[in-house]
């Protein structure tokens, strides 16, 4: 229960910050602009990983032992799809990850299902599969080091990486 609550808070916070940034930047991001400034004032090149992270959100989170996309995750992916439409030259690799509370092999399988969930959602949203790859990293590449739910909830993730 606590776990779920925490996840909602994390995801909620994340979306909120993205939404705020988007509103702020909405006007000056388009396919032809080569750069846009983030809220922190640092120059960000449009269509890059940095742009995706700051202005859209590069990741979605999963429940324990699940590869289903939550409502929050779907909202993030809708925004990613719109962003990808805007930058047709940006290709991506979706990485699927798991927390450390499972066997290495099971988590590789789970990570692949998670990556594929994101990949196929984006495909259904109209992104050409030629622009997308996906890969599972199982529990091998945690985002947050730590043996507690705080770390685990952030490690159960699908991350969209702009590959060029």
């Amino acid at each position, binding site marked *: 229960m606590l776990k779920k609550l925490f996840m909602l808070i994390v995801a909620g916070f994340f979306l909120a910050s993205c939404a705020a940034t988007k509103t702020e930047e909405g006007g000056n991001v388009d396919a032809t602009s080569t750069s846009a400034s983030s809220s922190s004032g640092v120059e960000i090149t449009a269509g890059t990983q940095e742009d995706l992270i700051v202005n859209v959100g590069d990741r979605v989170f999963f429940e324990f*032992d699940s590869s289903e996309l939550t409502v929050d995750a779907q909202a993030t992916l809708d925004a990613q799809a719109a962003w990808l439409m805007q930058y047709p030259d940006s290709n991506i*690799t979706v990485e699927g990850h798991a927390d*450390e*509370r*499972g*066997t*290495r*092999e*099971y988590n*590789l*399988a*789970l990570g*692949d*299902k998670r*990556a*594929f969930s994101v*990949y*196929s959602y984006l495909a259904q949203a109209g992104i050409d599969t030629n622009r997308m790859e*996906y*890969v*599972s990293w*199982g529990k*091998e*590449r*945690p*985002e*947050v*080091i*730590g*043996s507690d739910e*705080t*770390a685990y909830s952030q490690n159960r993730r699908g991350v969209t990486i702009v590959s060029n």
Partner: protein
Amino acid sequence: MIKKILLILFFSLNANAALEVTIAQGKVEPTPIAITQIFGADSDTARYGNTLRQIINNNLTNSGLFYTVNEDLYIQSDNLVEKVPRFEDWKLIKAQFLLSADVSKTDKGIRLRMRLYDVFNAKEIEKLQLTIPDENLIRRVGHTVSDIVYERITGETGYFDTRIVYVSEIGPLDQRVKRLAIMDQDGHLDSHQFLTDGKNLVLTPRFAPNNQIVTYMEYKNNLPRVYIYNLKTGEREIVGDFPGMTFAPRFSPDSQSVVMSFSDPNNAANSEIYLMDLNTRSRSRLTNDSGIDTSPSFSPNGEKIVFNSDRGGSPQLFIMDKNGDNIKRISKGRGVYGNPVWSPRGDLIAFTKLTQGNFHIGVMDTNGNNERVIVRDFSLESPAWSPNGRYLIFHRQKRSNLDGTGGEVSIHFIDITGYNERVIPTPLDGSDPAWSPLL
């Protein structure tokens, strides 16, 4: 090759019936053995003798089935290779068995002579003489002699002349550098070798049961795929070379096929179990279910496969025929199961189980009955059997902390009775151990 050399040079003259120390479930009382100095006439042979004695002593003691009687108590200090021991003297210090040996130089190499005595029955029970052509083989010879003693006294197959392949780990936990490495079963540093350079992530190596080939998973060009590594030639070859991840490989008992998971993009990247014939490279699909199917492990007779699946909701253990028919769930307890590994004796399946916040490594009968936990901790994984089916090796990882500390992972050895756990030393952190067959 080495094996052949040893076989040719090895001869054992006595043919008494095997003396079996009965090994029941539960704690085994170690058998007391005395190992005399291994005598050498000059400094080289004395050094070889010391090394051999140390190897044999460590091996037998580490097995948990023997303890060596303190040398300070020895009454007789002679070389007992040619001389009959004063059995009364050895009985007095409660040595049940007595090993004596000597080393000398000949024009063909280093000659080792060994005698094993049953003290209580006052007779010689094993005798061998062999010539070691090369000093570099001393460790192997030490292991071979240990196997002979172990087999003669326990009646079980030995396991000392074997190697362990594993994943050596270093670096921050979120960017771990992992290399395949191999070492003698005792983890002796002199035997340790890295097999890969750490450029690509490597995971889950497993030995072929009949030869010196390892199958494992590697992220070459960020594509996770199954490979085989020929330890004799150093050749590496991709096995699962098709779009989609291949992982969790294990050899069939004849070492001619690899059973593994394949996550097919045309099947929603859901992991199914496939069998790949290494000679023809044809693959056949064994499972077909919307759940994850992974971690397949053959029974030693090649008829059945145990695997891990969440088809019922949570990850559990299942058994099927080698062609994928007759799938039956065998895990019965509460918790999340994984890593099933069929014992080389055929009678047990080792597994991991996550329940109540802890990992457990245990064994169960092949129908899932008589589950018992051998070891429990925060994080345990990758059980692998000794070739004689008496011991397990696995890895144990400590909790990690937000500041990046912790997470140390090491390889452990344990008797399946749950006694005699010890660390197998590795130069860096170690995980995913797998045991070779007897060399």
